[in-house]
């Protein structure tokens, strides 16, 4: 533990011995943190390390069980976000709090003091947005905007209160690489203006590029404060994870016949704010891992629902599984054809949170896995799947058959992926396979997907994580506003090229090429 900064400057905000206890669980365990003016301070850690808890305490959203906050050396008690804001602390959350049906200006006005007139707010909004190079049209409704634009609203809203400290919670999780670069320019300007930025992330390269100081949390404890530019990504990762992270072994694989073929799939959204799927075509061959990249909200959820059959009502030939048309079939009929699906949301979609793991094995297994005999469930077969998944995928749990929600994110994700892999599927469609899970579990899951493909399965991975796709995918296509780009060989494509496609650039002219590439 070495503090790299000179002790002469006065910290803007100090957290001293912060403890946050939830029942028997220590979310924050005696954390000290100093944020200085004019620095970008990274708060690094895996999911569950206690980052969000700590910043919520700093923003007055929750109260620490012990310890105190000092603002410019003076002890303060923040009873709520409004007190934090009046001190000069602004925050941009990972999940935006915006009303979709209201305009940009209306949303900003809602978050500001009622004393200011709406015209004056709109004017200040436009000035602030222009001053920082964050273009925003005040009169546009939020639902028309991309995720990146929505984030701009949140940032501008925070900047309009002229904060001395701006807290950003995983701001690049939803951005394309280019959008992230634009954000970094803005953040560097704020730093030059003497403002402090507390930047929460688990992306190491980005922290090394942007931040002056990094504080690393693990399991609720502070591990170190360091200068990230003097560390390597590997050394930072070691501090975050507390051990070496395994590399995925990529075996060379031979591709066989296409096992899932999608042809000219168009589908209107089920609700007003959904994305229309527009003429999507691709195929995945046996042995291949096909990655679909893209910023969230560009039709990935709709595509998953169409592929799984949760939204059927298509014409039959748009989706073909192992040579048989499946477009009009429901999710169970597709499972009987050898397809398996892992949805993005672990709790509530993939599993019923308050049901036991054995029952959650039945959830996707009842149609095709011998767990039902003449309408009766076979408990033994359900438990057998739980035991096999536990063993093969190292699912850690307190008891043999606990409720799904008692597992940690990573262990539950290993279970829901394992549950499908154990069915030995011919086609596996998986959305965000390692979203929000720890590095160890992520490596296990990616290895399992690679091994499954090596076994002859066609694997389709929908992911926002480009690193993940580069690590395991053979070909990558990008979704933007309901359309899918031509697939690109993962070996030959650059991050920049994918980033441009994720931002919508170059999608249109490549359309004819797309159909040819698919047929190849």
């Amino acid at each position, binding site marked *: 533990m070495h503090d790299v900064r000179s002790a002469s400057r006065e910290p803007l905000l100090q957290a001293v011995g912060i403890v946050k206890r939830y029942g028997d669980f220590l979310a924050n365990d005696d954390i000290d943190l100093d944020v200085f003016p004019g620095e970008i301070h990274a708060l690094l850690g895996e999911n569950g390390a206690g980052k969000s808890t700590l910043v919520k305490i700093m923003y007055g959203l929750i109260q620490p069980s012990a310890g105190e906050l000092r603002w410019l050396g003076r002890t303060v008690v923040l009873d709520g976000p409004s007190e934090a804001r009046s001190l000069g602390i602004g925050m941009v959350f990972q999940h935006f709090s915006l009303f979709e049906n209201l305009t940009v200006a209306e949303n900003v006005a809602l978050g500001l003091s009622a004393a200011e007139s709406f015209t004056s707010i709109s004017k200040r909004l436009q000035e602030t947005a222009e001053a920082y190079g964050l273009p925003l049209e005040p009169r546009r409704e939020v639902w028309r905007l991309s995720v990146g634009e929505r984030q701009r609203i949140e940032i501008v809203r925070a900047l309009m209160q002229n904060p001395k400290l701006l807290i950003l919670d995983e701001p690049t999780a939803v951005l394309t690489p280019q959008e992230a670069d634009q954000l970094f320019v803005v953040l560097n300007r704020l730093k030059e203006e003497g403002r402090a930025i507390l930047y929460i992330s688990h992306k190491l390269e980005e922290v090394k590029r942007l931040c002056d100081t990094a504080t690393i949390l693990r399991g609720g404890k502070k591990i170190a404060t360091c200068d990230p530019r003097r560390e390597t990504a590997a050394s930072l990762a070691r501090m975050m994870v507390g051990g070496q992270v395994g590399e995925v072994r990529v075996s060379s694989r031979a591709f066989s016949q296409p096992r899932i073929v999608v042809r000219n799939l168009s589908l209107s959204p089920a609700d007003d704010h959904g994305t229309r799927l527009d003429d999507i075509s691709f195929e995945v061959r046996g042995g291949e891992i096909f990655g679909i990249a893209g910023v969230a909200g560009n039709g990935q959820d709709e595509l998953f629902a169409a592929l799984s059959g949760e939204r059927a009502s298509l014409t039959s030939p748009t989706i073909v599984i192992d040579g048989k048309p499946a477009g009009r079939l429901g999710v*169970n009929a597709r499972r009987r054809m050898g397809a398996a699906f892992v949805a993005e949301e672990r709790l*509530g979609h993939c599993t019923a949170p308050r049901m036991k793991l054995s029952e959650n094995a039945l959830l996707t297994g*009842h149609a095709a896995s011998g767990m039902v005999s003449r309408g009766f469930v076979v408990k033994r077969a359900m438990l057998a799947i739980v035991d096999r998944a536990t063993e093969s995928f190292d699912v850690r749990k307190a008891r043999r058959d606990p409720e799904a929600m008692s597992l940690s994110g990573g262990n539950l994700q290993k279970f829901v992926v394992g549950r499908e892999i154990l069915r030995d599927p011919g086609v596996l469609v998986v959305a965000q396979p390692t979203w929000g899970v720890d590095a160890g579990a992520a490596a296990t899951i990616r290895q399992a997907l690679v091994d499954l493909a090596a076994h002859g399965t066609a694997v389709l991975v929908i992911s926002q994580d480009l690193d993940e796709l580069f690590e395991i995918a053979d070909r990558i296509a990008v979704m933007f506003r309901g359309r899918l780009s031509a697939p690109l060989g993962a070996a030959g494509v650059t991050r920049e090229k994918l980033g441009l496609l994720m931002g919508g650039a170059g999608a249109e002219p490549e359309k004819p090429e797309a159909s040819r590439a698919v047929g190849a």
Partner: protein
Amino acid sequence: MQLVLERRAERSNFATIASPLAAIALTLVTTAVLFAILGKNPFVGLEVYFLDPLTDPYSLGEILVKATPLVMIAVGLSFCYIANIWNIGAEGQFLIGAVAGSWLAVRTNGTDAGPWVLPAMLVLGTLGGALYGLIPAICKVRFGASEILTSLMLVYVANFGMDYLVRGPWRDPHGLNFPTTADFDPVATVPVLIDGTRVHAGVLIALLVVILASVVLGRTLMGFEMRLVGAAPKAARFSGFSTDRLVLVTFAVSGALAGLAGIIEVAGPVGHLQPDISPGYGFTAIIVAFLGRLNPIGILIAGLFLALTFIGGENAEIMIKVPLDLTKVIQGILLFYVLACDSMIVYRARLLHTAQKAAHADA
């Protein structure tokens, strides 16, 4: 000092059993207070209400008779409630079942129809209840109408429809203008099991329903479907189950069981169709379902307990001169405590000292 509720990591098995027992205990204490307020000796009151009916064979038989419709209806309702589907209209389905079965009894009255009449009546009652239950279900699936409102409103339709029949076309011509049908023939009557009581064969049917429901809920895919739709609708869709289909199925099943209970009640203890065949069985069964933890065995026990309050209430009216409506008050208090104690299954209460208070303020 401050009391806070914390979510438990897992459902507590102990609390699942302790919660209804605690609810009953709290109800007894509150009832004792009520007796005291009414100027009666609370201990005598409780004894008359909850103990005396258990000491004499006739009252024990009456408890079985009252518990039979309660248990059958509540088992059907539990199917709906487990799936988060809200059938509040079991009272109406009970009445329509009674009417549908009685139609055959009235038609064959005084003829030499054979022993097929009673089974046919039971089938008609079951069908009638099921079809009547399907009305709100179809309205929900087709038009998105709230089943809570439609099923409740249909209770009144059933009530007045039956009233019309017994005062009009089906009225017993020799019945001195009382609004009642003629007494059913022996072939249209549920046989009494124990002489000297009114305990009838319907008790066995109720037991059979409890056993079948236990098997369906605990062991079959359909039971899993109901639990899954109730617990996590999105996961249920992922599992390939259709909520619409389940609305239709659970309403039909709960309607069928309520209808069967209805025809057994008129063809058994009552013996003819008349307006006041139900002291609110369909509504009391909602309490039974929740007190029994939506579990068939639990419902059997809860049904016996609620039946005890009916009999105890009648006793208390005669013995210590308290109003019969006290029974409804006690049933209401019981439901209140059941729902309150249920929170303890998912949450646990902790007393916090002032120092810890701040820590939990926003947690």
